């Protein structure tokens, strides 16, 4: 059976979009060690920032630029007010970030209403690619994801800050006694990861319907991508995103969307079980 090239392009787009969302999560999970259940709502906040900026008449690009800043600030506050206070209670962190997610989502409902909104892509229309028309904005998001991947790799492996961050990931205590301001690094990483989520939200907003539930839809795939990712770096996240996002869109094309979601979730449960077991074995 010949495989439609557009299908592969769709799978690639899905994987890259998921990478954009998951990379922020990977930063906070890798460095701060916190499973942030509010990550989907940070994405939501990014999308609604873009919406609010567009409604204010400033256009889409201003929203895309502003979203990471606004959401980065939100993440900074989340770290300062909630996560910092629960360092010794990891299960409570989970619960508290879930509560924070609820608060952000319901604030959005209170401000913008429960209905869904649409944002027009800044460059409408499509170009012919591999013999079929393909939406320009989707290509734009794919390019942005690649840019973020390059930026993350550069930041982590080619700068002094990246060296410090990798040191803190490898051994928090040793990094602290070596004179690194680990807490400040963590606060920075958390705000940065949140900013990436905000960027992802604003970037993907024109591709989706912007509604209060969109964060939840992204949270689980992004988590699965991060948790099944081999290693913590951008490369691992990319592999995880390719497995989860690409797999889902391929199964959706050949079978049905509902079945695809179920298959990916079930597959991830099995995979995750093995990964979690391996991690536990390493810690012992």
């Amino acid at each position, binding site marked *: 059976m010949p495989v439609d090239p557009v299908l592969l392009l769709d799978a690639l787009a899905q994987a890259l979009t998921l990478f954009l969302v998951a990379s922020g999560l990977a930063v906070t999970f890798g460095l701060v060690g916190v499973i942030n259940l509010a990550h989907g709502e940070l994405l939501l906040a990014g999308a609604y920032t873009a919406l609010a900026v567009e409604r204010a008449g400033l256009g889409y690009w201003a929203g895309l630029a502003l979203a990471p800043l606004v959401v980065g600030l939100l993440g900074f506050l989340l770290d300062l007010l909630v996560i910092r206070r629960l360092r010794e209670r990891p299960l409570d962190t989970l619960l508290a970030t*879930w509560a924070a997610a609820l608060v952000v989502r319901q604030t959005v409902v*209170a401000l913008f209403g429960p209905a869904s909104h649409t944002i027009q892509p800044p460059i409408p229309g499509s170009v012919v690619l591999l013999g079929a028309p393909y939406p320009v904005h989707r290509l734009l998001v794919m390019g942005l994801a690649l840019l973020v991947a390059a930026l993350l790799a550069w930041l982590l492996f080619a700068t002094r800050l990246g060296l410090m961050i990798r040191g803190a990931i490898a051994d928090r205590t040793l990094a602290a006694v070596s004179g690194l301001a680990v807490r400040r690094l963590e606060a920075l990483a958390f705000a940065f990861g949140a900013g990436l989520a905000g960027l992802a939200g604003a970037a993907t907003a024109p591709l989706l319907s912007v509604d209060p539930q969109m964060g939840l839809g992204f949270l*689980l795939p992004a988590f699965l991508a991060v948790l099944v990712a081999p290693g913590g770096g951008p490369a691992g996240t990319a592999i995880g995103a390719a497995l989860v996002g690409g797999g889902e869109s391929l199964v959706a094309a050949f079978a049905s969307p509902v079945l695809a979601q179920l298959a990916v979730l079930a597959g991830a449960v099995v995979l995750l079980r093995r990964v*979690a077991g391996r991690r*536990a074995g390493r810690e012992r």
Partner: protein
Amino acid sequence: MSREPLLPALLFWAALALLPLAAPSWLTGQLAQHLCYGLLAMSLAYLWGQGGLLSFCQALFFGVGAYAYALVGLGKLPLLPASPLLGLGLALLLPTLLALALGLLLVTARVPTGPAWAVLTLVLGVIGERLAVASPFLGGSNGLAGLPPLALPLPGGAFELLDPVPTFLVLLGVTAAVQLGLALKIASPAGSLLRAVREDALRAAHLGIDPVAVRLRAFALAAALAGLGGGLFAAQFGFVAPPLLGLGLSTEALVWVAVGGRGSPLAALAGALLVKTVEGLLGEWLGAGWPLALGLLLLLVVLLFPQGVFGGLLARLARPVRP
């Protein structure tokens, strides 16, 4: 907390039993429904507070219990007659079997019971809700309606539970029995084993305790109790739909237990009754603001009262006079 103080529990149940004398009948009916949520809260408190297993899918078992009651009550299952009591039995059995099956997947020694476990339960809850929505047999997103009420086989003929006061009293009896049973279980050697595994599974294993079996038993017991709550809820409500097993209700249950106190099923039950009653009073007035208030409440309780409101009180009562 290892030992539930008995006196507060008895006082609590006595006061609740006298309530229909003073309260209007609509309030009694509402409280009867809230007692079903109380069963869900107690099951979660047992699993989370005693077993250290934070579950984001406890409503899955509540919902499966409700659907089991609905399917048998409507006579939609082959070989089973349309019987409410049989439905209630299946509402206990089916969630237990499901928990055992899922437990073998989740509660194995190789999966750490920390955050990864909690995320897996979150995924399971989402899978369950999507399956229910996608299944025409379960009525899809419309659910199943027109369920028969629970009928008690009394000597003078079956007695249907339709009026608020008898329904409330039956529910009160069931819930009180479950609460006292859980208190005994927590104080028993089995309760000590569960807490030992919660504190340090590896050490418990070295002492000859099988952590997998202990966790699996706790998971199954909690599922059975949640399923019982779901079955009783369906019997009263006469209607089941996918939100009964979804993330929303699972989250609400976490709020009740966190507010009441995860350490004690009684405190969790009181938390459920408190939050649901406040929701009944303020929900309409706050409208869309209620979920926001619920989120803020959960955030504040986790940050400021990790033992919960009633849990702190009970712990104070349970503290021995001489340390």
